């Protein structure tokens, strides 16, 4: 079944060379202004085909997605709304307890009005640089002036941090090494990566890994070619993280090893510990034919190289006996870093910084919620009595085991290197669906 690339928003399937992105979270004070706003912006929304074809000349990179309350506010009927899945209807904050967002990570502590029932939509503006971003933001403000019933609840600015020669987050880990490949996109997965996923794992209306097309929520014109986006805003406590490395490693080399053990990859090059257990090897990290060419079950069953609780080993178990359906637990990660860079030698300055993850999938519960509630936050995972050191809820009471002969080493009392500061579920409709929404009466 051929992908309707001209009807799918570009956000999950392309990766235009944007360094900066503004995310405006919006509310519709009345249905008409919401619809008019969509209608006016429709020509700026990029589809996969157009963005792939002319990334340099055609920078129509706008993306629009809606919450359940947003679809309701635009006038989608109750009858149709009732056919959407529960997680989307309830929203992320209503499911916080199940996800494991407790204590400091509780939605009471989330920012940006993100838990407000008035949160209806997000518009994402990608740009090459700040000047272009400012132009886009100004343009968008014009649309808002024309549609005064559409208001900004909050804004999130994502921007690459220095050094700019490689993509990394505030703790210094190289990022964007792994991503699912989708059948029909003509991309060959790098060695060791998952075989191409059936499109239905990420886009509604296509066969998924079971071979079946899941029934679409109604009306089909609204949901065909759409995806769900799970948004997670995570503050990163960089000073705390660096202090922890220092108190658990006497030399720079030891500290780097501790950092690598927590992640499963070396910070600078992203080289996987399974292939480079003792020291970073940039030839491996920078070689896409090597940096995912490993598994855990055969190559490192006990975790002597990559601890069983390391972030990338929890998020992608690469072992059939842990999950036989890893191909159904994948997400497409989008987003980036927010807040100012903290230079290596600078003390913690208290500034708000972190990452925003937008996880694209076809089934919020099976894919995103499973990763967070079970593999990130379940202390019973692999009988570790741990949580994920980066995306799990931590408060200093849990340890992190580093398997080692003759006896394992324990990193004691993992503090909250991160905190959840926001989250929401969005539906990212296809292009025809946007038109349908703008035409609702």
């Amino acid at each position: 079944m051929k992908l309707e690339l001209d009807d799918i928003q570009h956000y999950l399937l392309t990766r235009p060379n944007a360094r900066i992105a503004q995310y405006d979270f919006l509310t519709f004070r009345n249905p008409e202004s919401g619809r008019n706003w969509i209608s006016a912006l429709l020509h700026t929304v990029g589809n996969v085909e157009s963005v792939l074809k002319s990334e340099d000349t055609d920078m129509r990179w706008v993306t629009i997605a809606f919450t359940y309350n947003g679809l309701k506010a635009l006038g989608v009927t109750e009858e149709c709304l009732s056919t959407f899945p529960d997680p989307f209807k309830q929203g992320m904050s209503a499911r916080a307890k199940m996800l494991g967002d407790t204590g400091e990570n509780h939605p009471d502590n989330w920012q940006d009005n993100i838990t407000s029932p008035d949160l209806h939509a997000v518009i994402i503006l990608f740009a090459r640089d700040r000047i272009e971003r400012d132009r886009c933001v100004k343009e968008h403000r014009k649309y808002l002036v024309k549609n005064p019933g559409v208001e900004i609840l909050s804004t999130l600015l994502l921007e690459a941090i220095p050094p700019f020669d490689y993509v990394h987050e505030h703790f210094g880990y190289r990022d964007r090494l792994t991503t699912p490949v989708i059948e029909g996109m003509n991309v060959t997965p790098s060695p060791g990566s998952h075989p191409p996923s059936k499109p239905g794992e990420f886009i509604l209306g296509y066969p998924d890994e079971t071979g079946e097309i899941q029934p679409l929520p109604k009306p089909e014109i609204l949901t065909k070619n759409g995806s769900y986006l799970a948004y997670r805003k995570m503050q990163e406590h960089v000073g705390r993280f660096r202090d922890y490395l220092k108190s658990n490693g006497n030399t720079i080399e030891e500290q780097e090893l501790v950092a690598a053990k927590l992640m499963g990859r070396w910070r600078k090059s992203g080289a996987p510990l399974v292939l480079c257990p003792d020291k970073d090897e940039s030839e491996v990290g920078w070689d896409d034919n090597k940096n995912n060419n490993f598994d855990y079950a055969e190559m490192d069953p006990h975790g002597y190289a990559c601890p069983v609780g390391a972030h990338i080993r929890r998020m992608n178990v690469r072992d059939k006996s842990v999950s036989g359906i890893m191909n159904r637990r994948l997400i497409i990660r989008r987003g980036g870093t927010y807040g100012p860079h903290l230079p290596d030698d600078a003390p913690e300055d208290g500034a708000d910084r972190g990452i925003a993850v937008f996880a694209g999938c076809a089934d919020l519960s099976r894919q995103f919620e499973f990763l967070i509630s079970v593999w990130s936050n379940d202390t019973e995972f692999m009988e570790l009595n741990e949580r994920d050191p980066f995306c799990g809820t931590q408060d200093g009471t849990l340890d992190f085991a580093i398997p080692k002969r003759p006896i394992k080493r324990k990193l004691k009392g993992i503090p909250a290197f991160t905190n959840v500061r926001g989250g929401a579920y969005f539906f990212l409709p296809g292009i025809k669906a946007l038109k349908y929404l703008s035409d609702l009466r």
Partner: protein
Amino acid sequence: MNNKEWSTPKAVAISKDTKDWEKGRYGPVPPKSPSCYGFSVIAKVKPGREQVVRDYGKTIEAAIKGDPNVLAPLKLHYLKWVLFDVGSGLHFMYQGIFDTDFDKYVEDAIDLFNKTGISTVFENFEDWPEDWRTNVPAVSKFFHEHQHNSFLEYGEYPFVSADEIKKALKLKASFEDMLDQMQ
């Protein structure tokens, strides 16, 4: 598992009231008991299907023989399948003891049920959703609705997981091996 909890047998009476139970992705989750997690699912067999259901015993025996580790992700201790009729028609009882709550790995379970032929046996029971291949929430609902919670659970070696038992047995075997080598 902390220190020597396993060495003291333990029983726990479980209240009928489930309102304080944690919510999983698909519904309330029973707390872990001294006999780990588990369920007792009871469903009515469609008329005339007894032999078909019984024959599945062999099918599944063969599936596990072919790939002994096929059910590993479910973290199982035991499965027991029982057919009984106490005057209200033939019923099927499916009891499983797991180290992880069923809700967490329900999609893995459904996939494995499909692979090993367990799902097809469920087609012989009343209320099994027709769209079980695609509808995880409906399958999960079936399990929740047909699950009968224990009011008492007992563990001779409480909270011990199958992995821990296997580790202990492996250790014992290697220890014996070591003693042999030292003769």
